[in-house]
Structures are given as structure tokens and as C-alpha cells.
């Protein structure tokens, strides 16, 4: 059990470090943003200096004219209380914006992860199983490599333009059709899901080849393992062997790649949500980046980091439950 504590401590250290980096980026880095904001208020809005300082304090969420260490402590305290400052662009507390946009991004990321991993494992297992049909496998490998070569935003642009805009095959703008009332009704859910088809497809098509290749690699070596031959000798049907022997032993080593995919998906959401106008964190982050809305940027950074660390922890814990070989003493 000791390793769980070690992992948690590691995660907390990483989390604190990441948060501090955000603090450093805004306060300390060249191009001192705080000063820029203050000066902006004083010069462009003719606000007296003291008031400007107060306004910027409200914006970033910690007192800006205090010495470094004090400001840092206030920063952390405010964070833990859920005070992330106030968005310059939208004049709303960052926490509110985050709360409103997080669900949309979560939906995109979770759906894409499920589709990518599921499809990737399926194709990877198939490629390993049919490795004797060399031409088929090589063709699939080529197709996967081509998919891999497309940055997800490029594929998103293509889907947006051709499948959406030109031929109107699938919804391509927004999270649900105008006129649909949000709520727990079938109409709304259906509309949302249909609007998410293209974004999820874009993300998944560019993510799943990596999973397919990894799975193919592990499955190919598992197929050569002795316990597979021994299982055949016992007369076990191929279906049983494929699932309980090959799949089970192939998926476990690549389970730990899930956090990597998660990080990629969270970053990719910035592009995909922008292209398909989904009202999620990614879209708002891209806008905030464009207008230099620092409080909002940092707020989203915080959420993404926390999500990744939690995701990592979750993967580690569940892995030991899933893999009997990793039974911790």
C-alpha cells in the first residue's frame, strides 16, 4: 500500500509545481503582465494607480503589489477557495466560466477517448491475428500511417468544409441545433450527440492509429507466447483464446498510455472546439489566448493540469486492480 502514498505525494508535488509555474508565468516572466495590465488601466482608462492595482488584483485573484512570497501564498489560498480571478474579456468570475464550459469539453474528450481506444484495440488485435495476410495488414498499416500524418485540426477543417458546410451530411456548428431547449430531454441529447459526431470522429481518427499500432505490437508478441499454444492444445476455442488470452494480455501493457492520450485530447480540444464551435474550454481558451485574457487562460491551465494529474492517478490505481501481475505486496 505504501506505493499509493508515494504516488499521491508525487502528484501533489507535481500539482504544486504546475500551479507555481502558472504563477511565475504571469508575475515573473519577461513581459510582466501585471504591470502591463496596471499600466493599461492607468494610461488608457485614466484610472488612478491604486484603483488600477485593485482592479488587477480582482482580475488575477491575488494582491499584486505585495512582495513575491506573500502574493504567492495568497495565490494558493485563493485557488483552493475556488477564486481564480475574473475574466477580462467576459467580466465574469473565471470559476463560473470554467464550470459552464467544462462539461462540453469533458464530453468531447471522454467520447473521443472511448472511441479511439476501442477502435484502436480492435484494429490492433485484428492486425495481429491476421498477420499472415500480409497484403491486407500492410494496406491497413499504410492507411493508419496516413491518418496519423494528419494533424487533427487539418482533418477537422476537411470534415468541417466538406462533410459539413458543402454537403450538409452532418451538423458541424455548435453543440446543438438552434431552437432546441437544453435539458434532460431526448431531443436535446440527440441533438448534442449528432453535433458531436464530427468533432469526436476528427479526434478519434487521428488518435486511434497510435493505439492500433501499440496493440498490434503487444498482441503479436503475445500470440507467440507459450500459454497461447498451451491453450490451443487444451482444445480451447479460438474465440476464448482471442479474448481471455490475447486481448487480456495485450491491453494491459498499453493501459498506461491513457494519460498520454488524455493530455493530447485536452490540447487538441482547443483546435477542434474552435473549428466546430463547441462551447467548451478549448474554444474559450483559444479566444482567451487571442485577446490575452490572462486570468481565464490561467484558469483553464489550472483545470487542465488538475484533470491530467487526476487522470494519471486514476490510471495507476485502476491498473493494479486490472492486472493481477501488478498485485502490490
Amino acid at each position, binding site marked *: 500500500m505504501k506505493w499509493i502514498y508515494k504516488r499521491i505525494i508525487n502528484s501533489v508535488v507535481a500539482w504544486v509545481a504546475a500551479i507555481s509555474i502558472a504563477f511565475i508565468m504571469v508575475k515573473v516572466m519577461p513581459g510582466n503582465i501585471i504591470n502591463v495590465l496596471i499600466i493599461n488601466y492607468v494610461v488608457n482608462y485614466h484610472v488612478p494607480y491604486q484603483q488600477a492595482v485593485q482592479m488587477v488584483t480582482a482580475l488575477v485573484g491575488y494582491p499584486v503589489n505585495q512582495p513575491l512570497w506573500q502574493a504567492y501564498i495568497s495565490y494558493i489560498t485563493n485557488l483552493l477557495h475556488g477564486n481564480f480571478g475574473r475574466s477580462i474579456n467576459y467580466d465574469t468570475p473565471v470559476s463560473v466560466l470554467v464550470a459552464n464550459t467544462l462539461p462540453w469539453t469533458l464530453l468531447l474528450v471522454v467520447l473521443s477517448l472511448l472511441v479511439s481506444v476501442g477502435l484502436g484495440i480492435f484494429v490492433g488485435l485484428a492486425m495481429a491475428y491476421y498477420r499472415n495476410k500480409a497484403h491486407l495488414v500492410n494496406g491497413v498499416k499504410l492507411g493508419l500511417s496516413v491518418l496519423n500524418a494528419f494533424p487533427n485540426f487539418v482533418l477537422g477543417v476537411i470534415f468541417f468544409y466538406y462533410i459539413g458546410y458543402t454537403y450538409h451530411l452532418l451538423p458541424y456548428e455548435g453543440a446543438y441545433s438552434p431552437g432546441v431547449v437544453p435539458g434532460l430531454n431526448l431531443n436535446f441529447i440527440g441533438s448534442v450527440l449528432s453535433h458531436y459526431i464530427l468533432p469526436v470522429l476528427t479526434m478519434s481518427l487521428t488518435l486511434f492509429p497510435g493505439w492500433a499500432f501499440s496493440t498490434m505490437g503487444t498482441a503479436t508478441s503475445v500470440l507467440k507466447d*507459450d*500459454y497461447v499454444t*498451451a491453450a490451443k*492444445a*487444451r482444445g480451447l*476455442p479460438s474465440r476464448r483464446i482471442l479474448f*481471455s488470452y490475447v486481448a487480456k494480455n495485450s491491453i494491459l501493457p498499453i493501459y498506461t498510455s491513457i494519460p498520454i492520450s488524455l493530455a493530447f485530447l485536452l490540447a487538441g480540444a482547443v483546435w477542434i472546439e474552435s473549428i466546430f464551435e463547441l462551447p467548451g474550454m478549448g474554444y474559450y481558451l483559444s479566444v482567451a489566448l487571442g485577446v490575452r485574457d490572462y486570468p481565464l487562460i490561467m484558469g483553464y491551465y489550472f483545470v487542465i493540469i488538475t484533470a491530467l494529474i487526476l487522470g494519471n492517478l486514476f490510471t495507476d490505481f485502476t491498473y493494479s486492480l486490472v*492486472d*493481477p501481475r501488478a498485485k502490490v505486496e
Partner: protein
Amino acid sequence: MKLLEVQELEVFYGRVKVVSGVSFSVEKGEILGIAGESGSGKSTIANALLRILPESAYIGEKSKVLYYGNSDVGEDLTKLPLPVVEKEVRWKEISMVFQGALNSLNPTLRIRDHFVETAKAHGLKDKDEIMSRASKLLEMVRLDPKRVLSSYPGELSGGMKQRVLIALSLLLNPKLVILDEPTTALDVITQREILEILRKIKADLNLTYIIITHDIALLADFVDRVIVLYAGRIAEEGSILDIFSKPLHPYTVGLLSSVPKIGQFSEPVVIPGSSPDYRRLPPGCKFHPRCPIAIGGICDKQEPYLNSVNSSHMIACHNYKLVEEKGVEIYGR
């Protein structure tokens, strides 16, 4: 009474022939040993019997593997459709004990799952009955069922895994058990134990064994009859007495003499040369490049047939009379 009769077995890996013209039979209740160095085709023959050869390998058309079971009529196992082999032959009639220290058990399944899935694959669905049978078998191999059944393979030692594999092989009351290197990679004490267990089980359950090994001591200790394999062909075949007291093939002589004996003061024999490359086998006798008594003009041109010397002893060598005469001295000792 014959249990198994192999006729002209040929196995190809792709285009390479790795087993050629192998014929032998196994009597009910006997222990047959198949001996040879690594790569001589021993495991290939065993795999061919159960038809678990890898995908790129196949059995030659002319080969016949006649299994008699309880009747007088033999079924050719090589011609049976695969689903029939899967359900009726594998494990029900013929089972196999792989090398336990290897990865022969699924690391992600508990031991009891191995038993249950095997039984289910052959139509046995009653979980309680399966578990009670499994427990009895595990006790027979001197393991604690309660502890072992709920364990994962990773938690068991090599010797324990070997015994689990033996117990597993008996689950469906087979008549013939093939044991592939059952004692290799085990320490000497465990080896002894395993052999004792195997002897007892054989007596209790009326089993027939085929033992595949390169361990001479195991052969001497355990088997009734020996087939010596070289380059996928039978070099010599005989009872344990025939082979050990009067070996007739130069390869057998070299094999036996390469193990130092207590009280022997001469140096053990090292057979010159290296194992054959199946893609480029020499013409004539496959052993002749390494043979100290090869006869030019005969051994390098004509492959020797398996000839009977007496009722139990068969030899495939042109020059075996010289071996009869000189014994281990043919290697200059």
C-alpha cells in the same frame, strides 16, 4: 495393444521439411521416450500429434497418425476436421504437459479458471464437479488445492507450475499424455519428486506416456523405449536396454558418451560439427558430415533405411556393424 501408430510423418515449416519419414507406434501402458538435441524435431512431432503446429507449418499429405483409443480401428488424426480435434481429441484422448517453468499458464487467469475453461470447452458445465475433480488432481500431484486454485501463475514456483500443468493435463481422463521436457529447468530434487508423481499417476490412471527430452538420465531412469531423433529423422529405436547397453548409431553413441559417468576416467565425447541447417541438408545420411565412421560413396549418397536388428531394436545406419564392434572408440576414445 497399440494406442497410437505414426506412419511416414512429414512436417513442413513453410517450404522447409523439418520432420521426414518418421514412423513409430506406442503400445498402451508403455512409456516412450523421444530423444534428440534441440531442434531435432521432437517438439514438432508432439505438436503435430495434437495439431497445434504454428500457422506457417503443415503436415505432409502422405502422413498418417492413427489413434486407436479403445477400439481396433485407428482414426487418422491428421485428416480429422479441426473442430473435431479441438473438442474430441485434444485433452480428452491426448493431452500435453508443457515445460512448466516456461510461460505455459495465462498470467492473467487464476489456476481454477484454467481448469474451468478447459472443462467448459469440452462440454462440461457443472462448476462444482469441475472444481472437485481439479482439487483431487491437485492433491494427486501433492499440491494444496485451496491455496493453488485461487492463485495466479505468477505466485507459483516453477515446480508448482509443472505440477499444476500435470494435474491440468489429466482433467478429462486422457489415455495418452505427452510430456515435453517435464523436468528441464527444475532443480534435481524437484525433478525426482515430479518423476515419482508421474509414475504413481500412470499406475493409478492407466496412462500411456510419450516423454520428449534431451536429458539422458531421465531416459535411463524412466522410459521403456527410446526413439533417437536426428535432423527430423529416426536414427535409432529400441528398448532401454538395447539403447543403453548396445547403442548402434554413431549419434546415439556420441550422445550417451557425452555425459560423464562416475568411475569413468576417459574424457566425454564431443560430437564434432554443429546441428544441421534444415534449409541445406546434406545428401545421403544427414549425420554423415559429423560422423567419424562415415563411408565415402555410400553415406554421402544414400539415406539409410530403418532396419531391424532384433525384435525391439531398429537402426538407420550403413555402418552400424562397426559401431557394434568398436562402440565409443569410433570417436577415438
